[in-house]
């Protein structure tokens, strides 16, 4: 079994951005993504997701490092000044690298 290195990009932000973010990551070359609803707290305060307008999402993308960098940079520049955004990168190993 051969494993291939890839980057897992995780973005946690306000749910209203989901549509725009999915568009952004696709435009920058991501082939797939996973969105899940989460709740928690950050520097901007608690986001407990109590009703529709208060939801938080976690968006995960596995891709090549340059694609992850491009997405991260764009998201930071576009949204971070006005929205709660947390971004991190992890190194992961995948099988079938062409899927990412």
């Amino acid at each position, binding site marked *: 079994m051969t494993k291939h290195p890839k980057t897992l990009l995780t973005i946690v932000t*306000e749910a*209203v*951005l989901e*549509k*725009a973010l999915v568009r952004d990551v696709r435009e920058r070359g991501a082939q797939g993504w996973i969105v899940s609803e989460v709740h928690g707290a950050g520097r901007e*305060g608690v986001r*407990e*997701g*109590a*009703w*529709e*307008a*208060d939801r938080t999402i976690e968006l995960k993308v596995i891709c090549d490092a340059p694609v992850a960098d491009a997405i991260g940079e764009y998201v930071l520049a*576009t*949204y971070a000044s*006005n*929205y709660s955004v947390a971004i991190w990168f992890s190194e992961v190993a995948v099988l079938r690298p062409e899927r990412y």
Partner: protein
Amino acid sequence: MIDVVVFFFLLGVLARLVKSDLRLPEALYETLSIYLLLAIGLKGGIELSKQPVAALAPQVLACVALGFVIPFVLYPVLRVLKLAGVDAAALAAHYGSVSVVTFAVATAALAREGIAHESHAALWVAVMEAPGLVAGILLARWSTRSAQGGGAGLRGGVRWGELLHDVLFGKSVLLLLGGLAIGALAGEVGTAPIRAVFIDPFKGVLALFLLELGLVAGARLAEVRRFGAAVLVVGVGVPPLLALAGAFTGAALGLSVGGVALLATLAASASYIAAPTAMRIAVPQANAALSITAALGITFPFNIVIGIPLYIELARRLA
């Protein structure tokens, strides 16, 4: 006398204040809100099937105009209260748009007092959701533009098509209009088999939903201190003034006592679902917590506990 459903709201607030672990499952909240929207639409639609739809055009136009004008009137007032331009615009949009649950509580209060109202009032709710949001976005663009001395305005601009799509085909307008259409097409006889689900248990479901909203609003109450007196003045002071505007509009349209009370309630209500989402996307610089605290933490409880009885009394004198 406080309507029984309002006690459920107060119970929710209390649960929050005493830090109870009570929490309604997300899926239930979602189900209840879908139910309420459909039921309100259906009820209106059944009545709609009994009258010529064209006759309603003046009412619909007046509702749209009222929703659109409210933010423009409110904006300068909020600026006087020292709110930043974008914050004033976003908050004004919340008041221009409407709260379906406040409307539902008002219909329940009218039913309890035996006051009849135009049964197609759900149509007013459906058409009053969007205009205030559009007005708020225009105000926000104008305020950032003038602050930057004729610059580009909001960074990146507004994707109007996408935004309008989200509001017009969003859950609330879609279900309200869908319910209205189904009710109108099926009529009294056609909807008889589903009455037991959609019409009769309405008030019980509303009570349960208000319990959940009490939990949510209770959490916002703690925020009031953070924003100080201005948000309190707005949250309590603005609704009665807007109710006057709604009541006069209703009286001018020749609505019944119940109709005037409902239009006053709609004008006084603030959106806490469609507006926060739309403003977050279109006016990201605005302080979302400020608007939510005013709309959901103060105005919503004020309206359902104190406002609605006042607006009904006002309607009695006007209509």
